[in-house]
């Protein structure tokens, strides 16, 4: 049983308690800098930022129900050339942490010298919905959480969040727990690793836990799993078969935004942006002649199927591909449906832990007897 402590919630609400806790990491010299979402002065978005002056924590808002981008990608950007020499704290949502685990396995990030702080995630809005939400309320984070505390799942949440079975982060040193807590009084700080336990000790926090948490987590996960199955049924109906799949991809303009937003699409130069896809005029005209016409730009379906082949085994379902699509193609729904099948075939859960080998980097001699005779 790992240790946990209760963080009191005062006048500043849950957000105040989280900011106070993050500040205490500095006071005790446990971190030198912190990667955390900060509110932009305009007030209608938060962005990940490296904070080196604890003064700036006034703007820190890891509870804002919006995820403009997956911070795993930012951790990769910071650590890929060389691990951080200073102690860097990183505040991540569960899907960001899971993506980070995958990136570490793909040798795109390093966890060395990082203090990983996960935070329970009730879900997020799209950037535009968040912008409207902040217009209406005084404190977006606290308001959102009190709505969440009432137990109603907000239908405005992103679809990917509504079907997410991982509201609680795993593999982080510390977890800031919200689920199952009475958010008017307290939140939970849980240790996930030995380093996390040491920190709870060093912060001099009184150890304690809550019994209501596990049941609350189980309830949320089962509701979401149910919703996920319903969505899968819908996607099978809407996007299975060449005709329907092409109808689902009808509005694709080949902008590759889904690839850019994906935390896991890590190639320095995408195959689809490479010279392989630059052809002579006669080639295009020849293809057009064979079918009577040729959709331009070419290779819409090839792009999506290839991205599935490359990424679906590691897809954590953060849904940012759908968010990035200018034409509302449900890219993430398709990835979740296909990923569910492929990941189960290899008993692989992306982001579960660092020791599970990536299925495409290894093999078993005795397996897959149905492939190849």
């Amino acid at each position, binding site marked *: 049983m790992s240790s946990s402590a209760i963080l009191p919630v005062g006048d500043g609400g849950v957000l105040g308690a989280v900011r106070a806790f993050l500040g205490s990491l500095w006071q005790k010299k446990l971190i030198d800098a912190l990667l955390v979402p900060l509110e932009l002065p305009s007030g209608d978005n938060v962005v990940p930022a490296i904070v080196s002056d604890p003064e700036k924590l006034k703007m820190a808002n890891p509870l804002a129900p919006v995820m403009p981008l997956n911070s795993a990608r930012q951790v990769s950007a910071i650590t890929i050339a060389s691990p951080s020499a200073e102690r860097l704290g990183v505040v991540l949502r569960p899907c960001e942490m899971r993506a980070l685990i995958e990136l570490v396995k793909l040798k795109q990030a390093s966890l060395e010298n990082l203090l990983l702080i996960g935070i329970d995630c009730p879900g997020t809005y799209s950037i535009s919905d968040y912008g409207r939400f902040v217009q209406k309320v005084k404190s977006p984070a606290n308001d959102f959480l009190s709505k969440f505390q009432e137990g109603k799942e907000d239908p405005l949440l992103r679809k990917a969040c509504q079907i997410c079975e991982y509201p609680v982060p795993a593999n982080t040193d510390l977890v800031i727990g919200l689920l199952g807590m009475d958010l008017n009084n307290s939140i939970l700080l849980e240790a996930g690793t030995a380093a996390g336990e040491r920190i709870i000790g060093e912060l001099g926090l009184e150890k304690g836990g809550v019994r209501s948490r596990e049941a609350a987590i189980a309830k949320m996960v089962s509701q979401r799993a149910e919703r996920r199955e319903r969505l899968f049924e819908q996607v099978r109906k809407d996007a299975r078969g060449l005709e329907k799949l092409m109808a689902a991809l009808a509005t694709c303009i080949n902008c590759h935004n889904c690839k850019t937003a994906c935390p896991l699409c890590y190639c320095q130069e995408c195959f689809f942006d490479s010279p392989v896809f630059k052809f002579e005029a006669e080639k295009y005209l020849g293809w057009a002649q064979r079918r009577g016409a040729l959709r331009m730009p070419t290779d819409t379906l090839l792009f999506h199927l290839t991205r599935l082949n490359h990424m679906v085994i590691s897809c954590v379902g953060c849904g940012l591909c759908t968010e990035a699509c200018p034409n509302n193609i449900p890219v993430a729904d398709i990835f979740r449906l296909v990923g569910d099948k492929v990941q189960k075939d290899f008993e692989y859960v992306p982001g579960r832990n660092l020791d599970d080998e990536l299925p495409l980097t290894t093999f*078993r001699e005795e397996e897959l007897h149905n492939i190849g005779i």
Partner: protein
Amino acid sequence: MAEEDQFEPVIVGFFCNWCTAAAADLAGTSRMQYPPNVRPIRVMCSGSVDPVYVLRALLGGADGVIIGGCPPGDCHYVSGNYRARRRMAILKTILATLGLEEERVWVRWISAAEGAKFSRTMNELTQAIKKLGPNPMKRDWSI
């Protein structure tokens, strides 16, 4: 029916240099027949066949694709065929989940000594694809 009889599928074969391509040679020198529908491409290893090659062939209008490699345990590069097997398993699952006729993609292990198996497999594949009919992707200008 008559139209189906006339349908001559285009099948792209990726054959490993050390086993299946050698088996094709053996079939030839042994004067065993196989249908001209199969267009063989010799690759150094079945493990070098990127799924995108297979997709490119299918989306480009091939009616079938076959990947031929060394039998498990016999890979010239020790583990290339095991890696190919995982890749093709994932590719086939993706196609199946999206209802895209994964049965057009075959994986077969045919050793250099198995000229007869090579010829038999190519006959079976051609028959199976003829039964399936033309690949609908061939006519779709919008994919």
